[in-house]
């Protein structure tokens, strides 16, 4: 499983992505707990529900199961255009 970070999430994680090979989170809620543990500064943003999640490049708005080969992305509201 790969977890990609974008925009100011990267400023908190100080990296562009993490890979998890064992004991990967089984759903988005589980992933949020995992991220809170390794990146405590993410907690306030995760709890305010302002971040968007994508699984394999598709937005997910509700909790969703995760699989070993999934590419997860976490990012703030977009600002392109």
């Amino acid at each position, binding site marked *: 499983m790969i977890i*990609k970070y*974008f*925009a*100011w999430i*990267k400023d908190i994680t100080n990296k562009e992505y993490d890979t998890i090979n064992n004991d990967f989170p089984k759903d988005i809620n589980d992933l949020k707990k995992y991220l809170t543990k390794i990146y405590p500064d993410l907690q306030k943003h995760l709890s305010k529900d302002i971040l968007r999640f*994508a699984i394999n*490049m598709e*937005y997910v708005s509700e909790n969703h199961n995760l699989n070993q080969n999934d590419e997860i*992305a976490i*990012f*703030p*509201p*977009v*600002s*392109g*255009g």
Partner: protein
Amino acid sequence: MIKIQKKNFNIDKEIKYLKDKYSNVGAVNTFIGYVRDFNNNKDVKYLDLDVYKEMALKELSKIKNNAFKKWRLVDCLILHRYGRLKVNEKIVLVVCLSEHRKDSFEASKFIMDYLKKDAPLWKKEFYHNDSVWLENSN
């Protein structure tokens, strides 16, 4: 066609490349977004544009396909740049080709609205002393 690229583009060439394929096109609507010199009450020096490239390609294709379902379009280009962009540089280009003008106008507006809402791209704006990640309003 969807393009996500660092380098600048020539508007005339991009339009000509599309238009030259079709003689039934009577109308082309184009939107170009530029880096402005002033935002958030501050002088802007430049932008850094972050992108989730593979997903942006996918999202923009989806938006483009939805535009094709809603209007009679002949062809369509969405081009978005990323990386460092200075004031006055072009950021985005949308080109919609149709037989009659109404379709090209409405599709072009629709695409920009959804691009601003859903395309995974982020602007970090740099001022004299500080910088801030932007969020699109509705």
